[in-house]
């Protein structure tokens, strides 16, 4: 084991904080948990271990085996084989976020292309090299807004239609900031709130307004009027996106977003039980010095040859240090690369085609489900590939029946929104065949009769 400190150094440190021994530092952990006796079975041979793990893994039911209608932030899309094949190249697979950028030209070029694709997709001027996931990217938008106003604007308005996990992460990030107030998504807030319902919350003390597009319920709104209202108050406007929807709909740049964040998972990244995913973060050029994370730029060397550099990044880590507004200095390099390969393979038209397939299949499903006695569609707004269904019995029960028929049902909204018990969020992608959808409807109808 590598231990960077000598015994003398450790003693000095303990003395200066007035603690007798290293063990004392762990007093907060109840002693019975400190060195528990591990009751482990006999060691297995490799062959036995492999057999046991295989048996365990066969007990899983994944989106590959089931017809998947579960979304709520992670979506089941087809991933062309070339994505995996390219990201598994050793040069990419083993490279960490470039700490010695000049000798990592391939990695930098991939990130530069990722940034270019994301700015195009979102309608923004500049994108960073990515964050961990949609939730952390959303939280970074709040940190940026806080510092943009130097802490003088203290109100953060969150629409209740933003993914509950993003809102929770944002709150966690803002915990250490004094005087901050996060409003809009209180437990009693109307979950179906429309953009104009947020107007009354926006004032001169507002730093940031965050909405989602499509929102957590799959709905699509034009946020132009809201953006205008936010800007009249001098605040910033952040939009959390599903990038797949941007293949089809107006970009947030077009309706006036200052910051676009989002979950990049739909762009060629497997659902993988929740991660690793990809946090998209893009903004307008006037905020380029306020963004966190890494940013790759293209330049020329002394001989005029094209080269890539980590633009502005030395700034946070080596120059601004304690003055930096964020000290995020990593990115999801490999996952950003996967999305870059995915977007490049599909191209502008391909992405639009996937989005259209999702849209049309989801609308076919919604129409059929809405016609089943006992079920109704309840969010009265245009939607992309996800929609809300009010069910006659608890979602949990329905999902158990669906699972018996090889169908992974929708998301139970009662978990996050107490007023939405018996409401199921159903996602449909290009992966769902007409037969899948018809089967889903059959089972739903069967269940409602019970």
């Amino acid at each position: 084991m590598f231990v960077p400190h000598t015994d003398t150094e450790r003693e000095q440190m303990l003395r200066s904080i007035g603690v007798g021994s290293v063990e004392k530092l762990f007093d907060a952990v109840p002693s019975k948990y400190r060195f528990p006796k591990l009751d482990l079975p006999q060691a297995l041979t490799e062959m036995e271990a492999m057999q046991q793990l295989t048996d365990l893994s066969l007990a899983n039911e994944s989106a590959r085996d089931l017809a998947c209608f579960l979304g709520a932030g992670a979506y089941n899309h087809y991933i062309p084989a070339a994505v995996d094949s390219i990201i598994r190249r050793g040069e990419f697979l083993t490279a960490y976020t470039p700490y010695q950028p000049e000798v990592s030209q391939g990695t930098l070029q991939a990130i530069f292309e990722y940034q270019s694709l994301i700015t195009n997709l979102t309608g923004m001027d500049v994108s960073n090299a990515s964050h961990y996931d949609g939730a952390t990217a959303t939280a970074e938008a709040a940190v940026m807004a806080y510092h943009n106003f130097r802490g003088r604007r203290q109100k953060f308005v969150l629409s209740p239609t933003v993914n509950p996990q993003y809102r929770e992460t944002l709150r966690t990030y803002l915990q250490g900031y004094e005087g901050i107030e996060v409003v809009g998504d209180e437990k009693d807030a109307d979950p179906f709130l429309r953009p104009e319902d947020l107007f009354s919350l926006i004032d001169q003390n507002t730093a940031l307004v965050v909405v989602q597009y499509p929102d957590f319920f799959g709905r699509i709104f034009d946020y132009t009027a809201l953006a205008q209202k936010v800007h009249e108050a001098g605040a910033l406007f952040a939009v959390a996106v599903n990038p797949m929807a941007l293949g089809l709909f107006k970009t947030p740049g077009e309706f006036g977003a200052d910051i676009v964040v989002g979950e990049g998972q739909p762009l060629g990244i497997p659902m993988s039980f929740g991660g690793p995913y990809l946090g998209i973060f893009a903004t307008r050029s006037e905020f380029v010095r306020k963004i966190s994370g890494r940013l790759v730029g293209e330049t020329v060397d002394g001989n005029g040859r094209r080269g890539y550099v980590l633009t502005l990044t030395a700034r946070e880590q080596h120059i601004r240090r304690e003055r930096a507004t964020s000290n995020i200095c990593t990115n999801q390099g490999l996952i950003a690369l996967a999305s870059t390969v995915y977007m490049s393979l599909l191209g502008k038209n391909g992405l639009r085609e996937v989005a259209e397939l999702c849209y049309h299949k989801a609308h076919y499903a919604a129409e059929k489900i809405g016609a089943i006695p006992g079920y109704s569609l309840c969010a009265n707004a245009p939607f992309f590939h996800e929609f809300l269904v009010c069910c006659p019995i608890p979602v949990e029960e329905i999902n158990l029946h669906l699972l018996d028929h090889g169908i992974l049902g929708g998301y139970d909204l009662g978990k996050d929104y107490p007023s939405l018990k018996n409401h199921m969020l159903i996602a449909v992608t290009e992966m769902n065949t007409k037969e899948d959808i018809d089967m889903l409807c059959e089972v739903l109808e069967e269940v409602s009769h019970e």
Partner: protein
Amino acid sequence: MNTPANLKYTQSDEWVQLDGNIATIGITDYAQEQLSDIVYVEITVASGDDVKKNSLVATLESVKAAADVNTPVSGTVLEVNEELGNTPEAVNSDPYGKAWLVKLEIKDPSELNSLMDASAYESYCSNRSH
């Protein structure tokens, strides 16, 4: 090193020019040379703000380091030099002219008494470089 005689100087390398009750603040020629190429100027106060002596009014970023600029005198911000956002290099080329940072309306000119004059600042700097 250029050290205009009509200005007052601080140990943290700010200069102040007093014109009636209006104080203009910037950083010195010595400071810009130490920082090297300035790439970003962030003025952290806005017109109408009340600032206290020794409080932060701007952060300058060079290719080597970031430095805080603190006001040597209390007052109300009258104007900030927005132009420097686009022309940070002016801090290097014209630290006493185009690169002024903020103008303050001051109430207590006696706060300036403790500052150095040009010759005191020059000898202060030459002692530091040894």
